[in-house]
């Protein structure tokens, strides 16, 4: 199994406060992703990274920022949390198993964030 941890695993915060979620991997994989999962919406990509200091936006990036200063860590920040950001957040990493540039992803255990 890929070594991926997320912290914290659970967090309750108030509207308007900043929140940072951390994803840590021990696999030295190049690609890292942040998803949010909400009932009725499936998994939606927030941001992803294809290397240190190389990041890009996903489908639902508004209100979120990311940083990757080291290969093993990918941080997701909510600058000013809102109730609509209450969700389960998953980090994922990918390793290349195919020549054709299509990778399977390994998911972390998730962080349940509640914004009151």
């Amino acid at each position, binding site marked *: 199994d890929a070594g991926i941890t997320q912290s914290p695993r659970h967090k309750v915060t108030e509207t308007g406060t900043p929140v940072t979620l951390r994803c840590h991997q021990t696999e030295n994989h190049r690609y890292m992703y942040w998803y949010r999962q909400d009932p009725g919406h499936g998994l939606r990509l927030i941001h992803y990274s294809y290397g240190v200091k190389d990041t890009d936006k996903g489908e639902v990036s508004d209100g979120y920022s990311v940083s990757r200063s080291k290969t093993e860590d990918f941080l997701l920040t909510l600058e000013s949390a809102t109730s609509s950001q209450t969700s389960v957040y998953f980090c994922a990493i990918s390793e290349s198993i195919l020549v054709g540039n299509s990778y399977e992803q390994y998911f972390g*255990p998730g962080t349940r964030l509640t914004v009151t």
Partner: protein
Amino acid sequence: QQPVQSPQAVILREGEDAVINCSSSKALYSVHWYRQKHGEAPVFLMILLKGGEQKGHDKISASFNEKKQQSSLYLTASQLSYSGTYFCGTAPPRDDKIIFGKGTRLHILP
């Protein structure tokens, strides 16, 4: 654009077969299938590439129809352990972003 999965939910008895469909309005290069059990992280099942063969994983297999821009996941002689939510994801060529569908909930009864 999110792929569309059908059905949204299905209930089966152990030993019955199931088919989950995934369709996209865009041309596909690859289709990815994941399973998520309640309270756990999604787990990779298989990838199908354009021009590739049908894949299999134990009694779970999948096909990829490039012309119809569709993929189907086949679960044969379902087991209780197959219960969970199945997600398909699609990715265009040379792209590392997977866009997932909303999922299909599968519940297997003994």
